[in-house]
């Protein structure tokens, strides 16, 4: 039969070989499928899920910053934007041309859009314009039926309703830059996300920022969103209630006016900072929208340094405002009594050098009270010589000088209280007695910031409690309930008391009251009397140039005739009321001239206003943020 024929035999064998081969290859396929679908299933499952799902972050709404009465300092306002989705338009370029007639499109953005839109995948939305006026936004909404693919959107933008009055202390927000982005928070990469760049916005960024929400969306191979799978709205940032009072702050800024300077006012007991103003100032709203190069250069080139927060970063010689501390040091070291009189003849000789009193004629016989009232320099040269630098350094530090007042505050400088060790370490030289004398009138190496002056004055006023400035109401409350120790004394021991004899402080109060309220006091001109309540203080006029011997003989050139940057700094520290002090204030006007004529009036007006506000029921004016909220409702209606 056939099966015995050779060709049939060969065929059967070869067909069998092929059949077995096929079976083997089938086994190979099955094994490979088993490997992919069982052994590696988990790994490929993850890869498929990664393919499928994109996680998008939702930027949380930034917490508001409020003043002590709840008035908004920083809030979020709607940012009216126009977004175009090219694939939904009839012709994206033509649509752009129509939009241009309705809303302003900057040339650079226009160029970018014309370049990017043709290259993009059609479903990627492009922001055509933002920060639109309500009218422009309404015009877009009105024309929507004729503009397929155009979407009006309302985003959120940081807004400072009080414009420039809080800008230094509160700061502003901006796009995260390269250094910020290195921190591995993916939220920073969300388009439009802003972080605190300075001031409180930066210092408390973590609290204000809130936590990011997220949305998981299913995408296809080209990244088009197919549907939303899940959404977690996140948590909006916490509101911060600041200790500041907008009305006082506003008054401080307007009192400073065009001058370069700063004002700090704080509660002497709680440390709450009511006013912390620096001038000239800038409008933080410009920073969130984006500053032009010219505006930026203008801010940088201004010799009055508008970008510096002078209240905490301006360092000045304290001048005569430090004299109370010298006097207390003298009393503590018992090198002088309040009654002892020292004669002032207008100058003081030491080792061949002459040290001048501001009063060239001399003050005559001065006891401690009158030496402070008249701000007699010779008295304090003598007192300083008797003390030496060490007690001066010790007492100055007790009153909060020479170290940051608000740890963590953005850009705060710590000033400088010089001493033997400091000079040895930094200048590699021994301390000279002449330097002690200069320190006795608050000149020389000594540097303080306005906030330190306010703290010093508060500690003088409150009976020697180690108060520190508090910027936030909520944090302050927390620290009260916890009964946290407020300061650390020189020995490292924690204490709420700076260890000053109340009798010594009483003497200082009396002298400082006379500075303002007695006819021979240096600040008599700016005194006020609010139904029996008065203030106390001390002026300071700080020389920023060397006066040569020749100039002294021919008559010192008055400030008005000097270049601005050579004029004296005008300083004033004060508190009110004299009995049961409540507020301390420090004013520094750079190159403002005399402390009594320039700085004292600002301080006195603010103290008076603060006391008056305590007596009146409060009226909080509606902010422009309320206006924006109203607009938001309108938007919701049309969108």
């Amino acid at each position, binding site marked *: 039969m*056939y099966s015995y024929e*050779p*060709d049939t035999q*060969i*065929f*059967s064998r*070869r*067909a069998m070989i*092929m*059949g077995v081969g*096929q*079976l083997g*290859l*089938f086994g*190979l*396929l*099955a094994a*490979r*499928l*088993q490997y*992919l*679908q*069982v052994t*590696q*299933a988990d*790994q*490929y*499952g993850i*890869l*498929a*899920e990664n*393919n*499928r799902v994109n996680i998008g972050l939702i930027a949380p709404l930034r917490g508001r910053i409020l003043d002590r009465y709840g008035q908004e300092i920083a809030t979020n306002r709607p940012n009216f934007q126009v977004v175009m989705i090219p694939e939904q338009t009839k012709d994206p370029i033509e649509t752009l041309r129509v939009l241009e007639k309705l809303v302003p499109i900057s040339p650079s953005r226009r160029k970018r859009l014309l370049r990017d839109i043709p290259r993009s995948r059609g479903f990627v939305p492009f922001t055509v314009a933002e920060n639109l006026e309500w009218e422009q936004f309404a015009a877009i909404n009105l024309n929507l039926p004729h503009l397929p693919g155009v979407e009006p959107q309302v985003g959120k933008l940081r807004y400072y309703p009080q414009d420039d009055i809080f800008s230094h202390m509160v700061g502003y927000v901006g796009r995260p830059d390269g250094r910020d982005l290195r921190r591995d928070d993916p939220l920073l990469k969300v388009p439009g996300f802003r972080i605190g760049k300075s001031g409180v916005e930066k210092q408390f960024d973590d609290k204000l920022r809130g936590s990011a929400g997220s949305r998981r969306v*299913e*995408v*296809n*191979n*080209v990244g088009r969103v*197919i549907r939303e799978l899940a959404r977690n709205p996140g948590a909006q940032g916490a509101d911060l209630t600041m200790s500041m009072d907008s009305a006082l702050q506003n008054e401080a800024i307007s009192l400073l006016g065009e001058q370069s300077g700063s004002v700090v006012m704080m509660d002497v007991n709680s440390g709450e900072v009511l006013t912390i103003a620096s001038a000239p100032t800038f409008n933080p709203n410009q920073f969130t929208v984006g500053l032009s190069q010219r505006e930026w250069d203008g801010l940088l080139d201004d010799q009055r340094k508008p970008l510096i927060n002078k209240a905490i970063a301006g360092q000045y010689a304290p001048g005569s405002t430090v004299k109370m501390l010298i006097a207390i040091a003298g009393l503590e070291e018992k090198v002088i009594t309040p009654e002892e009189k020292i004669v002032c003849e207008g100058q003081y000789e030491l080792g061949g050098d002459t040290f001048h009193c501001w009063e060239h004629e001399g003050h005559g016989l001065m006891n401690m009270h009158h030496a402070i009232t008249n701000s007699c320099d010779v008295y304090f040269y003598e007192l300083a010589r008797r003390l030496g630098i060490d007690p001066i350094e010790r007492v100055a530090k007790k009153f909060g000088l020479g170290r940051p007042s608000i740890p963590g505050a953005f850009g705060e400088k710590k000033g400088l209280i010089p001493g033997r060790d400091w000079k040895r370490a930094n200048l590699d030289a021994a301390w000279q007695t002449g330097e002690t004398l200069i320190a006795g009138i608050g000149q020389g190496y000594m540097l303080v910031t306005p906030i330190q002056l306010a703290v010093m004055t508060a500690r003088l006023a409150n009976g020697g409690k180690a108060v520190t400035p508090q910027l936030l109401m909520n944090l302050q409350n927390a620290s009260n309930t916890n009964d946290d120790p407020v300061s650390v004394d020189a020995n490292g021991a924690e204490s709420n008391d700076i260890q000053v004899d109340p009798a010594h402080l009483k003497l200082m109060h009396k002298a400082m009251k006379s500075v303002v309220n007695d006819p021979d006091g240096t600040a008599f001109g700016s005194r006020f009397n609010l139904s029996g309540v008065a203030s106390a203080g001390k002026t300071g006029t700080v020389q920023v140039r060397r006066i040569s011997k020749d100039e002294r003989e021919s008559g010192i050139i008055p400030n008005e005739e000097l270049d601005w940057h050579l004029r004296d700094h005008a300083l004033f520290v004060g508190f009110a009321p004299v009995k049961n002090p409540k507020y301390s204030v420090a004013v520094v006007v750079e190159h403002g001239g005399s402390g009594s004529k320039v700085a004292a009036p600002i301080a006195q007006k603010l103290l008076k206003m603060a006391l008056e506000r305590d007596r009146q029921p409060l009226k909080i004016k509606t902010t422009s943020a309320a206006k924006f909220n109203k607009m938001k409702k309108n938007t919701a209606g049309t969108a």
Partner: protein
Amino acid sequence: MSQFLSPRLNSFQGRLASLNWLLVALITSISLIGVMMLYSVADGFEPWSIRHLTRLIFGLAFMITVAILDIKFWFRIAYFVYVIGLLALLSVEFLGDQMMGAKRWLDLGLVTIQPSEPMRVGLMLALARYYHNLPFENISRPQWLALPLLMIIVPAFLIFKQPDLGTSVLFSLTGVSVLFLAGLSWRYFFAGGLALIPAGWITWTMLLDYQKKRVLTFLDPNTDPLGSGYHILQSKIAIGSGGLTGKGFMQGTQSNLNFLPEKHTDFIFTMYAEEMGLFGALILLVMYLIILLMGYLIATQARSVFARILAMSISVSFFIYLFVNVAMVIGLLPVVGVPLPLMSYGGTSMITVMFGMGLLLNVQVNRYTELSVK
């Protein structure tokens, strides 16, 4: 001779009744799975699923028609079919429509076909008849080998020129397997294997850039995950993520979200394995395996040389396409444009497979038919 003929083969009904209906049922089932998967791909009957179904119905009718014709008819026109196929290939060279950069398609008015596919059946018919006529002792003589080699090489070269490397290679492989089944001496296969090395090198130099790239990315798909390696990688992700039981019908994320390329044609198995899992994939492979087993049985039971060579080579060719396609989508072979028989969407593939299966069934129906040497 006639005593070997079953009397019922004389009638139309008799021939129908003697058809291997299990084979027909398997072919239909696999094709219906294809219809189902094409529905899942497009999320509806349009555009592929319904047309695949229509083609299946016409294809089954065509297959049965081919099956119940007298095997002598196919024996007579074997060379003619081959020549028609060759002419079609040549006309593609001169008249063919360009599609995706390659001239493969011939517009026949009603349908456009790729002649390279049905040409395979023409080759098998022609070679089967050639070896049917060739005395056994002449098979391994070089002078009798020249013609069959030419019959393979000429169309293979025309297909390669289209350019369609994958089909050309599979076409040649089909031809070589017929030579093997016919009983050609082993020596030729050893020699051919050795000759393949320089031939491979020459072919490599003639390859177009995209063809070279395909081969290279096959060797290491991870080097270019978004470029040429994309298809392989995405396909493996889809299959692997299907797991044991799959993501469920219409639930394949990879395929429904377009991460998969060509999922209605060459990558339909990927889609199937993603949605039906390893169990589904193995069930499908077993169904294919049963078809092949039947092909083997039909071939070994056939009396005439023509019939058995034809039947076995159709079965082998079916296997080659099936294996290369599945091996390709699971990353065992480079990406070559080869459809999965019965499941991939495509009219040409359907016609070719149904033609081949029709001939296989024809051999089964006519297994006792003796054919004289002509």
